[in-house]
Every structure is written in structure tokens, then in C-alpha cells.
């Protein structure tokens, strides 16, 4: 698996390039992604593919609980938890 800093950077880059109303400077790992409509539920499918690629594991979407995509910290904790 890639180093934690590299994974966080990849997630931030994805959010900035696919999201709305954030830049590299304004996006933090605590920025609420869905509540602030930075990204929408329809974009989660793409984000899931990125997380699968970074983690090397398939994600069972049916098992996901609300809040796992709340912000970058939540994504790190749920899908890369062993690093924290």
C-alpha cells in the first residue's frame, strides 16, 4: 500500500479536480464533502474506484455506513484505518 501522505494527497487532488467550490488551499482533510456539496452522491462511485485503487481492496458498497465519505479524515479512517 502507498504511504499515508501519498494517499491523502491523491484524495485531495481528486476532490479538488472533481468537486465544486474548493481549491488546494481551501480544502482541508476536515472539509465536509457531502454536506457542503463539494461532491455529490453521484460522484461517490468514482471516488470508490479511487479508494479501491489506492487500498488495493474491493469495496462492498452495501456494507458502507453513512458518514464514511464525510471528509478525507473519515475516508482515511474507514478504508486505510490500519495506518492511523
Amino acid at each position, binding site marked *: 500500500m502507498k504511504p499515508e501522505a501519498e494517499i491523502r494527497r491523491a484524495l485531495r487532488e481528486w476532490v479538488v479536480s472533481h468537486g465544486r467550490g474548493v481549491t488546494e488551499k481551501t480544502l482541508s482533510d476536515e472539509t465536509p464533502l457531502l454536506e457542503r456539496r463539494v461532491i*455529490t*452522491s*453521484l460522484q461517490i*462511485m468514482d471516488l470508490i474506484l479511487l479508494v479501491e485503487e489506492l487500498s488495493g481492496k474491493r469495496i462492498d*458498497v452495501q456494507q458502507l455506513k453513512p458518514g464514511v465519505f464525510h471528509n478525507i479524515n473519515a475516508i482515511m479512517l474507514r478504508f486505510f484505518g490500519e495506518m492511523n
Partner: protein
Amino acid sequence: MTDKFKGTVQRLCEASRKQFANPYDTIEWPDKVDPDAWYMSPELISLYGGEAFAALSEPARKRLSFFETVNFFSLNIHGEKPLVEGLARRLYTSDIPEVSQYLHHFLDEENKHMVYFGGFCQRYANKVYADKKLVFPREYAAGEEELLFFAKVMIFEEIVDVYNLRMAEDERLAPIARRINLLHHRDEARHLVFGREVVARLSGRYLPEWSEATRQGVREYLAQYLTATWKEYYNPDAYQDAGLPNVYALQRSAWDAPQAQAHRLAVSQPCLNFLRKHHLLVDGKGI
């Protein structure tokens, strides 16, 4: 408008009754798939026209065509499950009684489609690819959820139907693949007529009532839905099953390829024109 709509719905009901099918005797299922056959038209394979596709041998292309068809049938199942739920919720809620009569046919036919698609995937691939879409609850303006439901159904089915029709007529394909695509297209032709009528009625009724922010939100949502619908045609899991390497990078490069963008635009054009005509899409967005 209402009389014209009622007449259309009555004609659709009559056509559904005439073509009523038993899903358990309309298909002869071969014991196994033929590895030398095509299951998806090569030109419809998501990698078609790119370097990765050019580098494959013909047997490898045929193997990919099989898994792309498993993906195509899987995404149809995942599209039809919420459709069936939504249609069932709308039974006997319309002020036009004929609508519920047609919804019974719509529900019946969508359930049969899933029997066909699931039958193929389970028999020959022993799997249905997972659905990676997530839906979060949210608040809607009056009529917004209704319009979005039928507009999403229409977008999904219009794209699928282009694939169904082309593959139903493609003599290169294995008979079982042609047959399933044909059976789906026969019913979808009626569903598309119904979908367009309902979306036109709902947009005409609600768009003038909504705030500009709501109208804009609906347009942006539908553009994103169109993109998300197309993204499902580019599945790294199918690439992996076909034995291809670096499947996530392959998915991105296939999506970004100019020929793939041109393909998506060409297939979506009638749907895009309809959405624009009814002020449901922002120009330049959605692919």
C-alpha cells in the same frame, strides 16, 4: 394534453398485452458459453478504438466482450431494481387511471428483464458485478423527486436501448446475447415512449413553479446522472476478469479517450436533445 397522454398510455397497454411473454420459455439457454463467440459488438466495447484494445488478440477481445456483456447486464439489473421500487410506489397515485394500468405492465416487464439478465450472469459468469452507486436521502421541492425519477429512468433506458438494438441486429454475436438484447429492446421501445411523455408532462408542470436555484439544481443533477450512468460501462472488475492489467488506469484512459467521448456523445444525442428541448440540461454538460 391529458387526452393525448391517455391515448398513448392505452396504446402502450394494448401493445404490452399483445407481446406478453413468459420469461421461462422465451429463451433457450445453452449449457455453456462459446469462447469463440462475440457477446458484445466490438464497436460497443468500452476499450474499442484505444491502444489497449488494439493490442489484444481476437480471442482476448472475445473474452473481453463476454465480461463487458456481463457488466452490461449487471448494470441493467442495478438500474432496474430501483426502477421497480419506484414504479411500485407510484401505483395508484396518478390522477389518470390508465397510468396505473401501464405501470403494472412496466413492472412486469422490468422484472422479466432482470430474469433474463440475471440468468445470463449467474449461469455463465457465476456473478453479477456489484453496484457501486450510493443514494443519500435529501429534501426535494414539490414535484422534484417525481421528475428526477422519471428523467433518470429515461436517460438510463435510452442509452441501454441503443446498445440493445445494435446487438440484437449484430449477426456476429452469440445467439443468446442477441436474443436477450432483442427481448429487452422490444419492451424498452414502449417504456421509452412512456418515459418521454411523463418527463415532458412533469417538466412542463413543475419547471415554471420552481425557483431558479431548484431548476439549476435539477439540471446539474441530471448532467451528473448522465455521467455516472456512462461511467458504469467502464468497469475495472470486468477488465480484471478479462485478464487485463492495471485495470484502474485502464478505466481512466478508456473514459478519457477522444473516441470514447465521441461514442458517448453520439449514443446520447437523442436523449440530450430531448432534455435540452425541455430545459432539463445545461448546454455542454453531461458527457
